[in-house]
């Protein structure tokens, strides 16, 4: 339940609701949309990326000199777990055609396409269990231009505009033209899409969509897709080998500069395992668990940007790594679920963000960076936020409107996960609004790819959140679910075709020594060893008493003891 002092504000939300309901029932926006200048102003004034300490220049690697998100620059300016002399590559422990790093949506799609369409074997190496990925957590839906009133080209225009016209056009074309086919592919695998009576796809709005384009599986969209893909992967143990709790820690190259596999780390036995592969797909997802600017995150436990740093050391260029997505509606209260995602589909279905006086202050479905910035502005500048007992702040997301618009029972039927999330804490979202504030959600940029998922390095392919260029500096809702399906499938195809032709040379991890030398030459002083693999949430005094483990010769080298959260930067919350 909400604390008593919020009653007055809640009363105002109820008071203004009939008027706002009337607005929602009319055609046309419930609040004026921002034009290009207004968008720029709110971004520069209030988006966390624009705070002075949010970015800095990186001093090593392919993007040397470029301004990146500060925590990303910290991640890249770090030591490897390994030196070349510690790795024996003369007899790899495992050999395969395609190595897929990451067992989320992109990785499983790639493995299935490699097997079904190209007869190619693969190994999926994943840090936790297969399916422990942000894919599992996407709630609201996937964009795909399937409705009659819509078209793939309209989807293209919405995505490019949402990304502030900085997206790589050929990637957006690939995304939008493959969309309808992906809906069909997943349905044939057995994904249960929400449908209308006549069998047509049920479509909803998301932020920045000019047509209803969001297809869904209630609010378990990602869970449904992920479990279907995983189940199918497990139906083919002869063609797809899954190695769980075995994250990759470095890529392996050959003498001609081609990517030729990876070194894995066994989380249980703490062994390093070498995998030789004709082609390698990085599908490691994003970096929410770096807690950029101290923000809570909607991301899963393993989202530590591993693929970024591995590929970067090997020489792959990154794109748009100066841009972070904060989801407009993370939970602000109750405390136990703070930072958790409240699906954008709540706004797609008619939920409205309102301030402490119950007044609208932004159109509910602006692109995410704009919407999030407007919410921060309302709290920080306009004093329109509601403080929580622990010192957070939030605005209301008026969810009771949804049943009023669509009929009683709609919320429980279509948003069972959201309903369940809040009712555990005595908040019935069909009767009471949710208190929300932006939460760290998505890595807009990543390893630069083309429409064939190729990178600067022959033999290295990237798909899904780990890749960069598709979304520009701002992704729209539902385009990441489509992204990992479209580009996971494409990566499977092109990596398989390449694997059939390539003849690898002598294997090497000499790039690690070269990178270490760059760090020394740039006078980088750090005890950070990456990939991070897992964040540590032990209390600080416990961390101080914990031994450094791992047996590596470098200081601070343990998967269990990374220091990023303590020492590399000071989270905003610690001010």
């Amino acid at each position, binding site marked *: 339940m909400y604390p008593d002092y919020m009653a007055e504000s809640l009363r105002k939300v109820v008071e203004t609701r009939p008027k706002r309901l009337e607005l929602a029932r009319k055609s046309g926006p419930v609040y004026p949309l921002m034009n*290009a200048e207004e968008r720029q102003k709110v971004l520069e004034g209030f988006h966390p990326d624009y705070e002075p300490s949010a970015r800095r220049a990186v001093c090593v690697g392919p993007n040397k000199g470029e301004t990146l998100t500060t925590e990303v620059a910290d991640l890249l300016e770090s030591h490897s777990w390994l030196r070349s002399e510690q790795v024996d590559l003369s007899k790899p422990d495992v050999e395969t055609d395609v190595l897929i790093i990451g067992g989320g949506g992109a990785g499983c799609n790639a493995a299935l396409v490699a097997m079904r369409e190209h007869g190619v074997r693969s190994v999926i190496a994943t840090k936790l269990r297969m399916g*422990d990925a942000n894919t*599992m*957590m996407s709630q609201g839906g996937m964009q795909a231009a399937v409705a009659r*009133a819509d078209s*793939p080209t*309209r989807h*293209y*225009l*919405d995505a*490019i*505009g949402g990304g502030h*016209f900085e997206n790589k*056009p050929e990637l957006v*074309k690939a995304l939008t*033209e493959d969309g*309808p086919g992906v*809906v069909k592919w997943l349905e044939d*695998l*057995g*994904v249960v899409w929400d449908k209308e009576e006549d*069998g*047509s*796809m049920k479509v909803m709005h998301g932020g920045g969509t000019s*047509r*209803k384009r969001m297809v869904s599986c*209630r609010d*378990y969209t990602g869970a449904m897709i992920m*479990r*279907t893909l995983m*189940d199918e992967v*497990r139906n083919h*143990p002869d063609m797809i080998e899954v190695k769980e709790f075995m994250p990759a820690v470095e890529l392996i190259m050959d003498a001609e500069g081609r990517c030729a596999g990876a070194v894995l780390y066994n*989380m*249980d036995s703490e062994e390093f395992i070498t995998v030789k592969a004709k082609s390698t797909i990085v599908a490691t997802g994003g970096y929410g668990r770096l807690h950029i600017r*101290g*923000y*809570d*995150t909607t991301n*899963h436990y393993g989202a530590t940007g591993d693929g970024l740093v591995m590929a970067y050391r090997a020489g792959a260029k990154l794109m748009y790594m100066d841009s972070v997505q904060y989801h407009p509606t993370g939970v602000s209260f109750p*405390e*136990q679920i*703070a930072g*958790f995602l409240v699906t954008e589909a709540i706004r797609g279905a008619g939920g409205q963000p309102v301030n402490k006086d119950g007044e609208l202050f932004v159109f509910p479905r602006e692109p995410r960076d704009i919407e999030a910035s407007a919410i921060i502005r309302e709290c920080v500048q306009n004093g329109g*936020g509601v403080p929580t007992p622990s010192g*957070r702040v*939030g605005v209301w997301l008026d969810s009771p409107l949804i049943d009023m618009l669509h009929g009683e029972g709609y919320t429980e039927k279509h948003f*069972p996960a959201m309903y369940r999330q809040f009712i555990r804490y005595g908040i019935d979202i069909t009767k009471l609004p949710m208190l929300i*504030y*932006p*939460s*760290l959600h998505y890595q807009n940029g990543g390893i630069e790819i083309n429409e064939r998922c190729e990178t600067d390095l022959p033999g290295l392919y990237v798909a899904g959140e780990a890749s960069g260029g598709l979304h520009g500096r701002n992704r729209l809702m539902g385009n990441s679910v489509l992204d990992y399906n479209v580009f996971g499938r494409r990566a499977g195809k092109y990596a398989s075709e390449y694997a059939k032709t390539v003849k690898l040379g002598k294997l090497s991890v000499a790039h690690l020594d070269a990178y270490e030398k760059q760090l020394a030459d740039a006078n980088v002083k750090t005890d950070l060893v990456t990939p991070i693999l897992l964040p540590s*949430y*032990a*209390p*600080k*005094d416990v961390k101080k008493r914990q031994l450094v483990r791992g047996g590596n010769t470098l200081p601070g080298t343990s998967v269990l003891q990374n220091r990023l959260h303590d020492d590399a930067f000071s*989270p*905003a*919350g610690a001010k």
Partner: protein
Amino acid sequence: MENAPAGASSSLSSSQIGDRQDKAEGRLITVYIMGKAYEVPEEATIMGAIEYAGHQIIRGAGCREGYCGACATIYRLPGDYKIRTGLACMTMVEEGMTLAQIPSVPAEKAIYDIEKLKPNVTAIQQMYPTVFRCVACGTCTKSCPQGLQVMDYVQAAKRGDIAAVMDLSFDCVVCGLCMLRCPAEITQPLMGIMAKRLYGRYLRKESHELAERVKAVEDGVYEAEYAEMMSMNREDLTKRYYARDSE
């Protein structure tokens, strides 16, 4: 920005629990993690408490938001004989709680070719015959942290009612607690996944507009418009974007 963003303030969500402890706020209670006593904040989730105790979870944490089923946990409370179940990321600690995480439940997934199955009782009989051992005791339903009517979907599976299995098991997070508790040793979540796939593959209503759209893309219907937009400069593209109509 004058104020710290709310997303960054101290928190009792599991991700930020260390900060809260450092400020020495809140009352501590005793819980027993795998039998060993720890003092933890009373407002913590089980996952938050385990991390507060200094454990690095490797198995037993995944999405941390109630979708992935990695953090299945069993526990008892003082003076209560009942074994209770919950997801560690979603369940609050209580004074005297004694708990253990069950991050993996042994179970054999049936290997099948969905193109060779039909959405009927035969598929259930062939792939998950243990379903027919159900004695209707309801233990599965009682153990479900999602509050699903698990026994009802097992009964529906026995009748070959694939649509009902799909609907009733839709929100299953595959934590495995039902199959751990089931005296008939049924693997409910795995059968549920197969039933959902059978429903999606065979019992859905076809979307004609989807089929038409897929074909239109294959036929290159949109190529000209793509080419036009891809050749536009930023200014013209911006104009077209802001001038577009909205549904």
